[in-house]
């Protein structure tokens, strides 16, 4: 038998090759063949069995033979009662966890009646201004049984406080409440761009929440360290992995600086990956991420508990990969992306609906997306064996390479003084913009294909029905919020808000004062106004 090098120079060279650039969607060049020469690590050190350090093959001993992943569809639109109805529908369809999408005003810390909320109330998610909305949103949902994920960042502290107050009012003690709040502010400056204050105070609020949850809400994941948005903003797979891990390292460092034992909180850090079109690259990324995190937690922070080293993750298929053209094709993309997630060993999964480039999904489109997961789980047989692609020369070589290239970025960010510093100078932001532009150029030159867009396009599209948000929703919510503000008791509210301001200044953990303000009917906007006043407002440097 020939060596790989000799084979490439003889047998392969003599065979024909299409005139194409053989590279991943991230433009990582791929060899025609991978052999045992490409993945020389020892099994025990590089892979090990599932449930064993460094968890390359999966964090749990029995993976999907023990328990399938959590099927968790992100939902939210209109008024709280509209989304509550969707939640009940999804639970009835066999979904096992909730995931809440808030509208832009809620996400950016404005009340529905603020002038900046005009035209945006209930449009991209559900509108939540006060505890009353949160009570309606989770009406008749058993908070001790269902876990909830909330995608919210700069106003996360307030939404978590509201959720806890809802639990309290329903007689569910905080230590029985489980779920996740995204609360990953570093990636906001890097990619998703929802912020209020500058990075440094934002990081302080995140750390307050990690500390508070570790002590008071032990089943809650206080941060979901998210690569999803980094990828959506146009990063490569390696950048997604690298910047997200570097964000995670920054949160761990901050919490350790507070005096928390790493093993007291790290087990409640979870991750959130994007699942893009390049199948093998995505599987390799998920495996590389687990190994990197395990090694860094052990070597850098001296974590002792295996749970602190396990990278547990939610994943979502790539919204940016879906096309407005020939939208039914998106069903196929989502299925393949979701399969990559399952073969990559994720713990929880959201599959996008085919109509999401056009609008929020219809109930029918959401059902197809959920069914896609159920088909993978129960028809394809891929859950019978753990990490079935492990040991593939190509997968192992890609896993090694993605880890090595991501570690290169992590070292560069270390040299800059860590992710907070890197974000303040715009380093990851620029790297992503560069990658996004590179990909766009490749598309326009025809080096990369999007079926139905730059190839196989048709002049006439088959229209699909999309969800329309009734503009009257905004009016109703604004009216409701104004009435609530007129009717509430103002003395206790004032006092509670003053306590939040004082905590901003003194450095006292903000969570208890925020919970108290929420109980006194303080709104998202009012508490965020305190952040604006105490910590200042961040404006986009507008790096191109």
């Amino acid at each position, binding site marked *: 038998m020939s060596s790989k090098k000799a084979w490439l120079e003889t047998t392969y060279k003599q065979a024909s090759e299409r005139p194409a650039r053989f590279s991943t969607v991230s433009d990582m060049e791929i060899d025609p063949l991978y052999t045992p020469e490409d993945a020389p690590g020892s099994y025990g050190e590089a892979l090990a069995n599932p449930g064993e350090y460094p968890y390359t093959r999966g964090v749990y001993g029995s993976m999907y033979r023990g328990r399938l992943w959590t099927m968790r569809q992100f939902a939210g639109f209109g008024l709280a009662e509209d989304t509550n109805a969707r939640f009940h529908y999804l639970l009835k369809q066999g979904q096992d966890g909730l995931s809440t999408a808030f509208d832009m005003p809620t996400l950016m810390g404005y009340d529905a009646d603020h002038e900046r909320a005009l035209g945006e109330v209930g449009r991209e998610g559900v509108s939540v201004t006060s505890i009353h909305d949160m009570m309606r949103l989770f009406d008749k949902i058993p908070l001790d049984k269902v876990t909830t994920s909330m995608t919210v960042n700069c106003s996360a502290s307030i939404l978590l406080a509201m959720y806890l107050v809802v639990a309290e009012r329903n007689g569910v003690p905080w230590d029985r409440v489980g779920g996740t709040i995204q609360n990953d502010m570093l990636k906001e400056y890097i990619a998703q761009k929802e912020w209020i204050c500058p990075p440094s105070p934002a990081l302080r609020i995140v750390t307050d929440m990690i500390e508070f949850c570790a002590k008071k809400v032990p089943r809650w994941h206080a941060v979901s360290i998210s690569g999803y948005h980094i990828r959506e903003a146009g990063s490569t797979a390696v950048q997604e992995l690298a910047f997200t891990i570097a964000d995670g390292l920054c949160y761990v460092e901050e919490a350790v600086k507070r005096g928390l034992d790493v093993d007291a909180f790290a087990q409640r850090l979870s991750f959130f990956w994007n699942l893009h079109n390049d199948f093998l690259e995505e599987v390799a990324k998920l495996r590389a991420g687990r190994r990197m995190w395990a090694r860094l937690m052990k070597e850098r922070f001296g974590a002792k508990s295996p749970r602190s080293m396990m990278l547990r993750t939610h994943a979502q298929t790539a919204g940016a990969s879906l096309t*407005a053209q020939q939208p039914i094709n998106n069903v196929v993309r989502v299925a393949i992306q979701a399969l990559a997630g399952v073969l990559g060993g994720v713990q929880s999964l959201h599959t996008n609906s085919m109509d999401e480039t056009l609008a929020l999904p219809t109930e029918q489109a959401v059902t197809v997306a959920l069914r896609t997961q159920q088909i993978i789980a129960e028809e394809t047989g891929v859950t019978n064996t753990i990490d079935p692609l492990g040991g593939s020369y190509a997968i192992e070589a890609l896993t090694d390479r993605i880890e090595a290239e991501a570690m290169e970025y992590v070292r560069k960010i270390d040299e800059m003084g860590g992710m907070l510093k890197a974000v303040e100078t715009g380093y990851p932001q620029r790297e992503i913009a560069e990658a996004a532009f590179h990909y766009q150029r490749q598309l326009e030159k025809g080096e990369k294909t999007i079926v139905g*867009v730059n190839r196989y396009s048709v002049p006439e599209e088959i229209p699909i029905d999309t969800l329309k948000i009734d503009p009257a929703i905004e009016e109703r919510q604004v009216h409701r919020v104004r009435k609530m503000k007129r009717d509430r008791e103002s003395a206790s509210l004032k006092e509670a808000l003053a306590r939040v301001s004082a905590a901003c200044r003194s450095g006292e953990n903000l969570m208890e004062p925020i919970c108290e303000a929420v109980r006194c009917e303080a709104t998202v906007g009012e508490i965020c106004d305190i952040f604006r006043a105490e910590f200042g407002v961040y404006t986009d440097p507008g790096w*191109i």
Partner: protein
Amino acid sequence: MDEKRLRILVAKPGLDGHDRGAKIIARALRDGGFEVIYTGLHQTPEMIAEAAVQEDVDAIGLSVLSGAHMTLFPEVIRLLKERGADDIAVFGGGIIPDEDAAKLKRAGVREIFTPGASTEDIVKWVGENVSPRE
């Protein structure tokens, strides 16, 4: 080239943070030979109209992906009119359904680009449809 280079304001109104498209367009327009000013995210229509007048631009490219385009685009047009600057060409892009695009054009938006439009098309459109302000 003795002809004055066209000045384009690329603006991102609304609260959403989807700036991938706006940044790519800004860069492509710059590479296409125009002077480009990018406002950054989270601009109000007032901030955009003000910046357009202050910077003396010939055109404004608006990018919205939050679904709030029917509120934000006409407001920018109205504010330009108020400032006597309605000869600034306004074009836009984002997730904009055809029926909305038609309404926006009637309201004075010169062109709407939807997903799948290439940067080349947009650069070409600007070159052919935007002229320097008097």
